[in-house]
């Protein structure tokens, strides 16, 4: 078993999860705060899109945006010197785009479940909207947010179709765990694939445990016996 896919996947999944986490929460906040139901539903549709299309197709569309001949891709290349396609950045990009709807949707549900009265209480106490968000809404929405985080991380870790499309499948560079698993399965090397699957499972167990730990810790206030 080769260690590089594991490292690459870990790096990709962690980085993309951090990005998705904040991006998703931010989007959720924006959308949840929208006045017009129609606009909200529309934006909601757009943001959920990466989930309803086959990842390969999503990857293809990403390629159509970030390809070096396309405006965005050309801009990035010429002005920032960044070439997305076939780079490690691309694995992150793909993972972020694919896992984004999970985070966004979960966070939105969780934020909507927060007692409006408490938000109002924060306002009458002169707390800024930002402070209310970070000190009141987020902690109270933690279980939902955490489950969004878990979903996003898991999805980023397992991301395959779009990654292969945008980042390629280059050993030591963009070959992530799922690509390795897939490659082994495709090449009929079942034993090798089991090894990678075991690693994937192991990583997700670790992350899930951590998440569970933090969620439990973060919501200790509901635990009546906390100060015992």
């Amino acid at each position, binding site marked *: 078993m080769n260690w590089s896919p594991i490292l690459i996947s870990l790096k990709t999944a962690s980085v993309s999860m951090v990005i998705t986490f904040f991006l998703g929460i931010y989007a959720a906040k924006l959308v949840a705060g929208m006045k017009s139901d129609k606009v909200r539903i529309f934006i909601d549709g757009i943001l959920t899109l990466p989930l309803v299309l086959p990842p390969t197709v999503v990857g293809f569309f990403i390629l159509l945006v970030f390809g070096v001949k396309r405006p965005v891709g050309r801009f990035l290349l010429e002005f920032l010197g960044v070439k997305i396609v076939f780079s490690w950045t691309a694995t992150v990009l793909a993972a972020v785009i694919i896992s984004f709807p999970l985070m966004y949707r979960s966070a939105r549900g969780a934020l909507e479940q927060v007692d409006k009265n408490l938000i109002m209480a924060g306002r009458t106490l002169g707390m800024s909207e930002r402070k209310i968000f970070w000190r009141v809404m987020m902690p109270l929405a933690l279980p939902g947010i955490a489950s969004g985080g878990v979903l996003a991380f898991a999805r980023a870790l397992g991301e395959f179709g779009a990654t292969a499309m945008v980042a390629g499948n280059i050993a030591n560079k963009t070959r992530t765990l799922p690509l390795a698993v897939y490659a082994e399965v*495709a090449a*009929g090397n079942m034993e090798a694939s089991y090894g990678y699957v075991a690693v994937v499972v192991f990583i997700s167990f670790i992350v899930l445990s951590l998440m569970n730990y933090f969620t439990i810790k973060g919501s200790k206030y509901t635990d009546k016996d906390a100060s015992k």
Partner: protein
Amino acid sequence: SQTPPAGQETPEDQQPVEEPQPRATILLAAAASLKNTFDNELIPLFEREYPNIKVDATYDSSGKLQAQIEEGADVDVFMSAALKQMKAIDEKGLIKEGSIVELLENRIVLILPKDSTADISSFEDILKAETIAVGDPESVPAGQYAKEVFENLGIWADVEAKASLGTNVTEVLSWVAEESADAGVVYATDAASNTNVKVAAEAPEGSVSKVIYPLGIVKGTTKLKAAQTFVDFLMSQEALAIFEKYGFSAN
């Protein structure tokens, strides 16, 4: 048994002296069916012979690779599983003039599950199968060839009605291996890679155009020299022998 690669007059051991190879990493984009050959043997061998050149490889279906190259992926050498994709890229002017080599040939075979007792021993017999696994002719080269065979036999319409169109070769193989499908059409090299299938027949001579694996250097490459060295290596007898070991034949 080291034969100098074709197109290279000087013996390989003198090469660094006469023309030092620039330190370079090149990226090979190859059809998924070539993965084992490259990863297990050819690339390690090449890198041993040319320590200055490192080869990265990405494998996928040729159609995807085509799209990626068209969108500017940093590919230096492209090897597809059919001429169609190579031509398409070439027509867009993305392949270095005159660099296309029709290197390998693969064969189209009819496969059955290992334990199959079905009375199928030729491509015409495939209609006895209840479900047929073939690659999607629209996107999977093996599927295109299968379609061609069946069209020449005049039974494509009947086959299509029973067909499940795989989006890649792995699917087609797995379907047959797991007996989801009763028969399927893949490359000989694919059939060889899976022990749960057996070959029932090869495509009859003349029923299908040659299954060519062309090789080309992508025009945008900045490492022309290294890429050329690699292509030359692949054309060497030594390399071809390895390809043959994996079921290909030199064209």
